[in-house]
């Protein structure tokens, strides 16, 4: 077979395996009364089927992309509801896989890496399933960068990956006119990329707003710090950079408006659990410590591989756009998880952990790209190869943890 056909064959093979694993997992989850899938499909979704409850349905779950796709299968293709739910999950899982694969492929080509497309397919598959390293005898209760049990997060995942790396290229172009982009071709200007960013961010908010809740403050923080830094440098770059800040704000505006609308639906118009309840500031780690006896250990188990990569090559995480932005996302989302909550009965739902999960996935992906880069260009000595081998081992442990859940 020609190389192109081989690539398509293996790509479809990986997609098929992922689809099967997703199908089996979702059907198992649907059978469990208190699972997220069961709640979204059998409690929230039926309200979308009737005109008189449509508004209530939207107020209950304003981020309804997953539900809409499920309904398309259910109403248009007349597929049973549980199978429709599984098919919708498969669709978004495949989208995430293709997003990961595309990012890896683009990076491999532009950074002139040695790894072929099969390796990228395997890595994309692993990135779709990686989980924290954990054991039932530990009380750390680490949170996952891929919470397979939650349909709306898995729905937003693909958009979040594309958004993040598009941002990295936009940042690169904003700072260097000659920058051509590693994932998106930004050499011809940023206008269409700003529009694309706005669309991807909005779609992610339609799927689950928690990614945007993390990314928008992280980008604002990063750009504000950069702008202030340029003011102090007094080299005349502060004013043009401020224009970039405004463009980014414009990109985020539709998403911000939709998120505010979702918050209003939740806290003012009735929302998921009836009225009452609002955004609240908690004590440091007040909610998290209910579930985890050691938050530091929980983070270490969730991020063993990225933390090792930061240990190996801290400079790249501090100087590169992807590294800095992923660390900013991690910091902002950690603060959200540590200090924010919903008052009333939803406090212990710990809904502000979701942004941290997104940040962990971004850091994981950035770390994987960095590992590939070091492996291709910097593995000249035995000691370096050993260190990189340890990194791959940690990556494999995370992937193994994912397989243990799915199989």
């Amino acid at each position, binding site marked *: 077979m020609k190389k192109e056909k081989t690539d398509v064959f293996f790509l479809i093979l990986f997609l098929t395996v992922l689809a099967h694993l997703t199908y089996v997992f979702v059907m198992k989850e649907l059978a469990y009364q208190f699972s997220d899938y069961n709640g979204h499909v059998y409690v929230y979704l039926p309200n979308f089927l009737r005109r008189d409850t449509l508004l209530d349905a939207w107020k209950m779950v304003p981020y309804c992309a997953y539900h809409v796709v499920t309904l398309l299968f259910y109403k248009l293709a007349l597929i049973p509801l549980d199978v429709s739910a599984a098919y919708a999950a498969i669709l978004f899982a495949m989208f995430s896989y293709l997003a990961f694969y595309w990012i890896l492929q683009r990076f491999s080509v532009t*950074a002139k890496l040695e790894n072929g497309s099969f390796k990228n397919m395997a890595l994309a598959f692993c990135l779709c399933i990686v989980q924290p390293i954990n054991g039932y005898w530990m009380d750390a209760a680490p949170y996952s960068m891929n919470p397979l049990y939650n349909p709306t997060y898995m729905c937003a995942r693909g958009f979040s990956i594309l958004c993040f790396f598009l941002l990295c290229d936009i940042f690169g172009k904003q*700072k260097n006119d000659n920058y051509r982009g590693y994932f998106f071709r930004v050499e011809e200007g940023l206008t269409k990329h700003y529009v694309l960013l706005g669309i991807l961010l909005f779609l992610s908010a339609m799927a689950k707003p928690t990614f945007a809740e993390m990314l928008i403050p992280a980008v604002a923080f990063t750009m504000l710090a950069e702008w202030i830094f340029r003011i102090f440098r007094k080299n005349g770059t502060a004013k043009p950079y401020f224009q970039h800040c405004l463009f980014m704000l414009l990109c985020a505006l539709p998403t911000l408006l939709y998120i505010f609308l979702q918050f209003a639906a939740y806290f003012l118009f009735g929302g998921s659990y009836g009225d009452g309840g609002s955004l609240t500031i908690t004590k440091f780690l007040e909610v998290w410590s209910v579930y985890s*006896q*050691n938050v530091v250990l929980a983070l270490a188990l969730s991020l063993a591989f990225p933390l090792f990569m930061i240990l*190996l090559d801290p400079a790249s995480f501090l100087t590169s*756009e992807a590294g800095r932005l992923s660390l900013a996302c991690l910091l902002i989302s950690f603060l959200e998880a540590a200090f924010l909550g919903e008052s009333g009965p939803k406090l212990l739902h710990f809904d502000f952990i979701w942004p941290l999960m997104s940040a962990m996935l971004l850091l994981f992906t950035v770390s994987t790209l960095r590992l590939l*880069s070091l492996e291709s260009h910097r593995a000249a000595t035995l000691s370096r190869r050993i260190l990189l081998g340890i990194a791959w081992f940690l990556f494999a442990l995370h992937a193994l943890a994912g397989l243990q859940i799915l199989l």
Partner: protein
Amino acid sequence: MKKKWILYGIALLCMILFIILPFPASDLSLRLVLDEEYPISTDTFYLYYETDGQGFQGDQMLTATVDAEKGIVTFRLASSLQGRLTGLRIDLPNTEQVVGIKDVTVSSAGVVKHRYHPCVFLAPENLKAQNGIRTISLVNARAKAYVGTTPDDPYLILSDPLTAQIAGMFSHYLLTRILVCLFLVACFASYRKNLFGEKQVNSPQSNTN
């Protein structure tokens, strides 16, 4: 140069203070891992705890049901009990049965602090008193202990030395704090040493301001 060493000194001082200053205790989990032959059920176990030598009281009690999948009973003692715990009593389900225990662990701050061999944990010298118990069989060869219970309020009171040993396992996250500081120092050392050479030419990781 001098400024650099002053900054290093401040950083080192902060780390030392972070490690040595008092830190709140973590909760303590006592886990009984039951034998596979234990019937799958939602039996409830109880743990009564005595504080400051004032005897076991009804409101100082924890309940735990068996995790059917793993066969584990977990009691979580609040960190506020640290320094005050003087007695522990494990109440088994009020039925006539044989409860097989194959492991006992004590965890705090998310890690196992001590694992007790069940034959040691339930050895006569580690039990102060018991009630409603027909027999306790310690099978060293299989590393299991079997407790025959009656429907008459079966419980085991742990001995004072064993209770004191368990009570001393509340963690103050010392190792966690040390490891956090070590990680930061290691990252700094790695940065200075530049383990993987100069910045690459063809990588987004080399795209700086």
